[in-house]
């Protein structure tokens, strides 16, 4: 007996939370992330028949979500100024109240917003979605070295934005 193929409904149910989280990190807006996730699931629905039985379905969903997110970011870059990403003033108390700390949050946030969308996607996939470089490469297209380079480039830019830090 062959193992039952998991249905798309089960897949989306299982991964919806992490995908919305990923898209929110990529787009900086929860509502946009919800919309993009919805759009990604529609695309997944269309492509589901072509997903092989042994394929890594999570990586496959991340690839679709990444393409949808990159499109959304591109569409947005054509639009006028928009509301800011994460509001550092609305962060929980663990973020620390000091002025210096707030300034750091603001600086890094701005630097994240200025990243090319592919670098931002790679960074979020590596740091928050627990994807390895092979999976990041599958999601973004390109090879593992390029995936790693995207993550490292992003971190170098954020570190540079932070400026001098006392050891």
């Amino acid at each position: 007996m062959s193992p039952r193929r998991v249905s798309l409904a089960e897949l989306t149910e299982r991964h919806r939370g992490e995908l919305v989280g990923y898209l929110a990190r990529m787009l900086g807006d929860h509502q946009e992330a919800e919309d993009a996730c919805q759009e990604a699931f529609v695309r997944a629905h269309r492509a589901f028949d072509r997903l092989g039985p042994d394929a890594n379905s999570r990586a496959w969903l991340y690839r679709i979500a990444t393409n949808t997110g990159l499109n959304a970011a591109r569409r947005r870059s054509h639009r006028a100024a928009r509301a800011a990403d994460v509001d550092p003033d609305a962060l929980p108390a663990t973020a620390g109240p000091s002025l210096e700390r707030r300034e750091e949050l603001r600086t890094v946030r701005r630097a994240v917003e200025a990243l090319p969308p592919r670098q931002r996607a790679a960074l979020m996939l590596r740091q928050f979605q627990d994807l390895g470089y092979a999976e990041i490469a599958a999601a973004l297209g390109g090879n593992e070295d390029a995936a790693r380079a995207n993550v490292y480039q992003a971190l170098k830019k954020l570190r540079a934005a932070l400026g001098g830090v006392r050891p």
Partner: protein
Amino acid sequence: MTRHDDELIALLLGDRRRSRALGRWLGTLEGRRELAAYRRTLEVLEALYGDAGAAPRRTIYYCPLPTPIGRVFVAAGEAGLVRLSFRQSEASFVAELRRRLGADVVRSPARTADIVHQLRAYFAGERRSFDVRLDLRHTTPFQRRVLLAAARVPDGQVVSYGEIARRIGQPHGSRAVGQALKHNPVPIVIPCHRVIAAGGRIGGYGGGLGIKRKLLRLEGALAAAG
């Protein structure tokens, strides 16, 4: 930027182990400074985009209640009532909330007591309108305008789709108004059943026309609805 950046990042991300050369450099002032700066970068990133920064997962509480129109489910979160549904199984109601809101869904009569109490009073004919906070974040701006206009139709009265379209400044949008009302996430509380077709015909209803008639009869508006 230094020539050790890549190696330092690899070390901090756990991609590679520390080489001797890097170990020596980390003993210098420059090395210590860069290590501190990259550590801080990752900390700030975590504060901004970790669980705290990215889309906090919400909890939605729900409860069933028996009514003259059958079993009704209500669901509310911190920000207010998100959903009222009838003619739906508990499993499908919960699955729909999880899917559409990406929330943790918990059955809790205690957290939904207020709206349940008001609905009981409504079906007993003791109450005509509701005093609850609504969370309509998951509707489109157009749908919100339609829903808020429908919410202002007092009990015992009906208005036409065209009239709602006019009230929101889109006089030719009566078809779109019908669509927006069809997907009303909180029927009864936002009384989309009080919106009917032109010429006094009863129009459509997401929950079925039988329920629309029952609600209008309960409110004493059925004569007007034809």
